[in-house]
C-alpha cells in the first residue's frame, strides 16, 4: 500500500469517526469531563505551589541581604543587639544614599487578627523598620492613605494583609498591649511577601513587645558582587556571631517545604485520578467500537486496511482527551487564577498572603499530561477494531 494512500485512508476514517462523535454524545462527554476534571485538579493544586513560590521569589532584590544571629533559620527566632546592628550597617560594600547606609535594623513579630474567611485568629506579621527600610525595598508604594509618622503609634498595612485579615482597613485601630495604633496607609510591593506584613516604627514596636534587641538587619549592597566580601568581613569579625544570607536564598528556603509538599501531593493525586480517567476512556472507546462494529466491518470490506482503522480509533481517543485537557485547563484558569488566600509559613510562624497562579507553563504541562491518557485509553479498543473478523462482524446486528 502506498504511503500516500495509507494516509488518505487514515484521514478519511478519522474524519468519519470524529464526525460521528455526536451520536455517542453521552459516553464521549463522560470521557471528556473525566479528563477535564483530572486536568482541572492538577492545574489547581499546582497553581497553589506556583503562587506561593512566586510571592516569595518576588521578595528581595539581587543585592538584598539579610543578617540574623548565627544558627537562626528565621527572623522570628533571631536576635541582634543595637551595637551589633551598628557594626553590620558599617560593613564593607553596604549601599549609601543621602540619608546614610541602606541598612534597616528590624523587629519581626506577629499579632493575632481574625481571618476574614474563617473568623479565627491568625498570626499576622508585624515588622518594625527604620527609615532606610524604604530604600532597601524600593518597590514599596502606598495605594491609599499616607506613610506612618516616625515616633507615632501608626502603622501601614500591606495590601495582602489588609485583604485577608479583619481590622486592617484604612483608619481602623490595632490594640497592641496598652497602646492603640492607627492604620494610616495601605501599601503594595510588586506581589512580594511584604504585602502580607504590617509595618511600623521599630523604636515604638520594641517597647510595645518588651524587646530590647533587633532581630535582623535588612540591607542593600552597592552591587550584588559585593556579597562575598561583605559576608566574609562579618563572619570573621570576632565581635559578631551572625549568619549572612542573600535575601533570594533566604526566601527560597522559606518556600521550599510547602512548595515541595504541595507539588508532591498534586502529582500523586493527579496520577491516581489519571488512572481512573483512563479507565473511563477505555470504556468509552470500547463502546464506540462496539456500536460501530458493522460500520468498521463495512469499511474493511471496502478495502480499508486495519492500520488506518486502528489509527482512527486512537485519534478519536486523543481528540477526546485533548478536548478534556483544554476544557479542564480553561476551567482551572477561570476559577482559580488569582484566587487569593493565605497560609501559615511554618518557618516564620506567620501568615503569607498569596494568590493562586495558573502559569502558561502549567497549562502546557497539563495538556501534555492528557496525551498519554488518550493514548492508553484508545490502544486496546483500537486493536479490537483493527482485528474484527470482517465476515461475522458484518452479520452482527
Amino acid at each position, binding site marked *: 500500500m502506498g504511503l500516500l494512500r495509507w494516509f488518505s485512508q487514515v484521514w478519511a476514517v478519522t474524519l468519519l469517526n470524529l464526525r460521528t462523535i455526536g451520536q455517542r454524545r*453521552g*459516553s464521549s462527554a*463522560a*470521557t471528556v*469531563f*473525566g479528563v*477535564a*476534571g*483530572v486536568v*482541572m*485538579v492538577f492545574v*489547581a*493544586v499546582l497553581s*497553589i505551589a506556583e503562587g506561593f513560590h512566586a510571592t516569595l521569589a518576588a521578595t528581595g532584590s539581587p543585592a538584598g541581604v539579610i543578617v540574623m544571629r548565627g*544558627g*537562626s*533559620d*528565621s527572623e*522570628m*527566632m*533571631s536576635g541582634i543587639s543595637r551595637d551589633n546592628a551598628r557594626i553590620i550597617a558599617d560593613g564593607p560594600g553596604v549601599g549609601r544614599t543621602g540619608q546614610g547606609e541602606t541598612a534597616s535594623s528590624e523587629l519581626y*513579630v*506577629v*499579632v*493575632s487578627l481574625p*481571618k476574614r*474567611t*474563617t473568623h*479565627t*485568629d*491568625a*498570626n499576622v506579621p508585624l515588622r518594625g523598620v527604620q527609615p532606610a527600610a524604604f530604600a532597601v525595598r524600593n518597590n514599596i508604594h502606598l495605594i491609599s492613605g499616607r506613610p506612618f509618622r516616625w515616633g507615632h503609634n501608626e502603622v501601614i498595612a500591606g495590601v495582602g494583609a489588609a485583604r485577608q485579615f479583619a481590622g486592617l482597613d484604612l483608619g481602623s485601630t490595632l*490594640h*497592641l*498591649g*496598652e497602646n492603640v495604633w492607627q492604620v494610616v496607609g495601605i501599601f503594595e510591593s510588586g506581589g512580594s511577601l511584604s504585602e502580607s506584613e504590617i509595618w511600623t516604627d521599630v523604636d515604638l514596636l520594641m517597647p510595645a*513587645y*518588651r524587646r530590647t534587641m533587633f532581630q535582623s538587619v535588612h540591607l542593600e549592597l552597592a552591587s550584588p558582587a559585593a556579597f562575598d566580601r561583605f559576608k566574609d568581613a562579618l563572619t570573621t569579625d570576632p565581635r559578631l556571631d551572625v549568619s549572612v544570607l542573600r535575601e533570594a536564598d533566604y526566601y527560597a528556603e522559606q518556600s521550599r*517545604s510547602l512548595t515541595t*509538599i504541595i507539588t*508532591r*501531593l498534586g502529582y500523586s*493525586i493527579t496520577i*491516581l*485520578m489519571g*488512572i*481512573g480517567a483512563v*479507565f*473511563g476512556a*477505555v*470504556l468509552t472507546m*470500547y*463502546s464506540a467500537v462496539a456500536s460501530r462494529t458493522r460500520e468498521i466491518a463495512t469499511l474493511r470490506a471496502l478495502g480499508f486496511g486495519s492500520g488506518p482503522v486502528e489509527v482512527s480509533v486512537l485519534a478519536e481517543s486523543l481528540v477526546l482527551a485533548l478536548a478534556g485537557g483544554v476544557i479542564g485547563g480553561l476551567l482551572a484558569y477561570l476559577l482559580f487564577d488569582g484566587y487569593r*488566600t*493565605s*497560609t*501559615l509559613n*511554618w518557618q516564620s*510562624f506567620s*501568615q503569607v498572603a498569596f494568590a493562586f497562579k495558573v502559569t502558561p507553563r502549567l497549562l502546557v504541562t497539563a495538556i501534555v499530561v492528557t496525551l498519554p491518557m488518550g493514548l492508553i485509553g484508545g490502544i486496546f479498543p483500537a486493536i479490537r477494531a483493527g482485528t474484527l473478523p470482517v465476515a461475522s462482524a458484518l452479520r452482527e446486528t
Partner: protein
Amino acid sequence: MKFLPLVWRNLGRRKVRTTFTALSIVISFLLFGILAAIRLAFSAGVDVTGADRLAVTHKVSIIQPLPISYGDQIARVPGVREVTHANWFGGIYKDPKNFFPRMGVDPVTYLDIYPEIKLPEDQKKAWLADRTGAIVGRVTADRFGFKVGDRIPILSTIYTKLDGGRTWDFTVDGIYDAPKGFDTSALFFQYDYLKEAAFTTNQVGWYIIRISDPQHAQRIVDQIDALFANSHAETKTSTEKAFAEGFAKQAGDIGAIITGIVSAVFFTLLLVAGNTMAQSVRERTGELAVLKTLGYGDGLVMGLVLFESCLLALVAGGLGLLLAKLATSGGDPTGGFLPVFYLPGRDFALGIGLAVALGLATGALPAWQAMRLRIVDALRRA
C-alpha cells in the same frame, strides 16, 4: 441469596466492561480514602481535644510569653482543677528539615492534664528525676530511631546557655504512645532545664488548664481574662478545641481547597462508572422480559437489577477503601509535616455508605425501567 449466582453471571458476561467499571470505582474510593486522611492531617488534633481543657495565651499573639506567676492566680479561679504550662523550644536537630515540636513543660501537671500521653511507669519515674531528660513520642522515635538512653543534641534558635553555647543535650528517658489521632511527634522536657539559659525570664509560652465542668467553660474563660485585663500581659483564654482549630485554620484554607476540588472529580469519575452501569442494564432489556415471561415478579426484577449495581459498587468501593487503608497505614508521607496521618474509621464507614448510595443511584433508573417493562414491547424491541 439464591440469586447471587445469576447476578454474578450477569456481571461476568462483559468481563472487560465490568473490570474497567470496577477499576474506576476502586480508584475513586482509593482517592476518597486518601483525601480523608489528608483532610484529617490538616485539621490534626482538633478531634482529640478534651472538652475540659482550656488554653491561655497572650492576647496580642502567641509568640509573646506570659509571666509564670499567672499560674497560681489562674489556679485560684473557681472551677479550675489543675494548671500546667509549656514553652516552645523550637531549635534544630542536625538539619532544619528534621522538624518535630520540642516543648519545655512542667512534667507532673502536664502528664496529669494530658492522660492521652501513655508512658510506662518506670520511664515516667526516670524522667521526673532527670532535669535534662526528655520524653519523645512514638512517631518521632520511630522516625529517627531514638531509644531510651540516647542523647539528642538540639541547637536552639531561641535559648542561649549560661556558657554561651546554644546546643542543648536531652537524654531520652521515655517514649510515649497515645490514642490514635493524638500527635505523638513532640519531645517534652522539663521546664526547669531552661533555668540553665543565659536569660531566665520566668516566663512561659502558654497555660493549659483543666476545669471540673465543661459547662462552666465560658464563665471561667471570662474570669481568667478579666483577672489580667489592663495588665502589661493581657490574656486570651479559649477552649482547647478552639485553640487547636485556630491553629489548623491558619493553614486550613489549603486543606479545604484540596478537599473541595478533588471531591468534584471523585463525583466525575463516579459519573463515568454510573453511565456504564446503566448502559449495561439497558442492553439486557430483552433478557429481563424473558425473566418476566418465566414468572419473575416486577419487584423481583427490580431487586435483581439493583442488587447487581449495588454488588459491583460495594465490592469495588470496599476494595478501594481497603487499598486506601493500606496506603495510609505507613503514616506521614511528608516527613514530619503532617504528623497525624491515617484513615479514620468514621470516614471508612462514610465511604461504605457512599458505595451503597452509588449502587442505588446508578441502579435506580434502569431498575425502575425494568420493573415497568411490558413483556410484549420488550420482546418485540429485542
